[in-house]
């Protein structure tokens, strides 16, 4: 009797391993333009990262005593996390406000957010001088409770867990684990509430990191309201990424979607465009208030003033207007362009705080410019994330409908 149970168990295990082995194999054509470009970049990036851990940060970066943070922080972490903001905004809309219209894109968005944290916040590890000590703030090898970074570090960790719980029903459906899926989807609401709270705090916390860089950040950007500005901008940063990413995913993974999905997606994009426009207007309003209170009219006439206006007017006000027009006249192409401009604006904004307007008074030879190897490794991280995203979407019910048994269980 027990022997029989053991053999069935063994057979089950063997079947599972076969399943895993089959799933691990690549699907589709291998020689696509994306693969041809991304694979060498990822391989080179991996080599550079190993090299960096042997020879120190200075070997592949242009970081200096004057510029301790470069694009690995300014782009990978600051911008990557802002772009991941779509997950908490959409989980709020779908799970808290119960707006079912956006349900079809929730899994792709949460998956994207989760992977963004794993990869971009994970890229932090290559930026740390003594990365093996990264566990210290977790295990309590001294808690730096007065540090904003302590809060951000804990929030990254907890939020990754929350997002993993949110996306985990898709994993359970993929593995066919019926009972576990039921337990996991029961945890969703709690994870969502927890996740939104954490996101509010660490999106603003990333901005709060710069509060102690007073005197080093150009007065047009430095304000005590940096945390609020970071939080407000993460809303439309995340949503524009959802629009942009959705337009690509729907082309690349169109086999997973039927005609209805495409029609529905158009409505979703228009709704997101309206939300973006609203959030951007609120953000712009805040920016104007901060600007007036800062009394920096005289600064506007300088080159930095023009750069500031380019960011605030060119990459916030104009795309905001384009989102509005696009939503009113149902012009998806216009909305897509607006989303790209918005994302560019976020990249420039976050880089201004961390790199460009940081120590604006330092002339160019001293001022930090990223080394090509820093850009290379950043691209490698981005491509690696896309690879994992594609691998998961091709195998799990992210874009396509969940299996029939899963919806029965609801």
């Amino acid at each position, binding site marked *: 009797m027990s022997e029989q149970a053991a053999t069935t168990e063994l057979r089950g295990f063997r079947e599972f391993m076969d399943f895993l082995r089959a799933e691990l194999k690549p699907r589709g054509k291998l020689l696509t333009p994306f693969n041809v470009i991304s694979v060498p970049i990822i391989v080179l990036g991996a080599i550079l990262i190993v090299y960096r*851990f*042997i*020879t*120190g*940060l200075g*070997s592949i*970066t242009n970081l*200096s*005593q*004057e510029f*301790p*943070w470069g694009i690995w922080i300014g782009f990978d972490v600051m911008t990557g996390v802002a772009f991941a903001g779509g997950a908490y905004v959409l989980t*709020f809309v779908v*799970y*808290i*406000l*119960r707006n079912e219209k956006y349900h079809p894109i929730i899994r792709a968005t949460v998956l994207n957010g989760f992977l963004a944290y794993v990869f971009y916040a994970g890229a932090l590890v290559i*930026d*740390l*001088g*003594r*990365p093996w*000590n*990264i566990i*210290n*703030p977790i295990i309590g*090898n*001294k*808690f*730096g*409770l*007065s*540090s*904003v*970074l*302590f*809060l951000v*570090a*804990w929030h990254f960790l*907890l939020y990754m867990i929350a997002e993993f719980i949110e996306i985990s029903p898709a994993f359970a459906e993929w593995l066919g684990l019926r009972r576990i899926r039921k337990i996991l989807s*029961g945890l969703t*609401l*709690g994870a969502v*509430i*927890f996740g*939104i*709270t954490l996101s*509010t*705090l660490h999106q*603003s916390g990333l901005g*709060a990191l*710069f*509060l*102690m*860089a*007073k*005197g*080093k950040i150009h007065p047009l950007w430095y304000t*005590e309201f940096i*945390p609020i500005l970071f939080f407000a901008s993460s809303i439309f940063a995340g949503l524009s990424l959802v629009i942009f990413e959705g337009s690509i995913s729907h082309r690349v993974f169109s086999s997973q979607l039927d005609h209805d999905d495409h029609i529905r997606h158009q409505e979703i994009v228009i709704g997101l465009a309206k939300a973006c426009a609203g959030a951007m207007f609120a953000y712009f309003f805040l920016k104007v208030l901060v600007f007036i209170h800062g009394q920096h009219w005289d600064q506007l006439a300088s080159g930095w003033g023009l750069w500031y206006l380019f960011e605030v007017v060119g990459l916030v006000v104009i795309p905001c207007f384009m989102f509005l027009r696009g939503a009113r006249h149902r012009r998806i192409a216009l909305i897509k362009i607006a989303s790209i401009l918005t994302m560019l604006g976020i990249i420039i904004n976050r880089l201004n705080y961390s790199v460009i307007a940081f120590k604006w008074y330092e002339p160019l030879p001293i001022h930090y410019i990223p080394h090509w190897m820093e850009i290379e490794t950043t691209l490698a991280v981005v491509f690696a994330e896309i690879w994992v995203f594609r691998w998961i979407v091709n195998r799990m019910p992210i874009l396509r409908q969940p299996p029939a048994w899963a919806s029965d269980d609801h």
Partner: protein
Amino acid sequence: MNRRNFLKALGAGTVTTVASGLKPQSVKASETSATKEFMAVLVDTHRCIGCRSCEEACAQAHDLPIPDITDTSVFETTRDPSTTALTVVNRFETDKGEVFCKRQCMHCNQPGCVAACLVKAMQKRPEGPVTWDTNCMGCRYCMVSCAFDIPKFEYDSWNPRILKCNLCWDESTRDGGQPACVEACPADALTFGTRRELIDEANRRIYCDEDTYVRHIYGEREVGGTSWLYVSAVPFEQIGFRTDLGTTAYPEFTTGFLYAVPVVLVLWPAFLMGVSHLTHRGDDVRRREAGE
């Protein structure tokens, strides 16, 4: 609200409360002790002769490459402290001729770097020095947060350290001795003592020789006060100091945000649970009407 929803809400609330326990409740960047006064050093730039004996003594005390102090070519550029020289002397051309000025960590009363450190590798010791420890993870947030750009990072090492002046905290000052640089100064330009005594002494020098000194003690109020105090015969801008730093201690710039954290952690989930409850109730009503 049925039992299951209640349990869910309870679960989310508990997790949040636990998490808020881990969050900063108060900002404690300065650890002023009731029994001890911060030790400090007064630099009289009017007395400094630019001999760089302090640089040499510092290098010896910290096992760093010994500089050739007879080489005056180093004065051609303005140097910053570095990973191999924790203190440097610079020469400035001023209204009153050449002035030499020593630079190193200022040892703030409430240091930005200490508030920045998420593992308390940077610490403000009760005696006054700000020191670095090896549980550091190398995030370099202390460098971003230092008003004086003092912490230096070893970019060329697989196991980098943050290096800066520690006021010879390990070496001598704990046993009542003086920092190496103070001991080495042949011109009596450096004086070691408690911060209070040295502010008195600085004021005395300014009042007794009003024609020579400018009426300002750099470090008395800058960024909330520092343990290194400077008096000078020329305005401080002319000898490489930033005079736009203000008198607010740097950790205070983040207190507003940190105080908001527990508030958000408690109110936000409560609000979200409330909204969620309201939107779910619509579902319950619909289901009841459908006869379930």
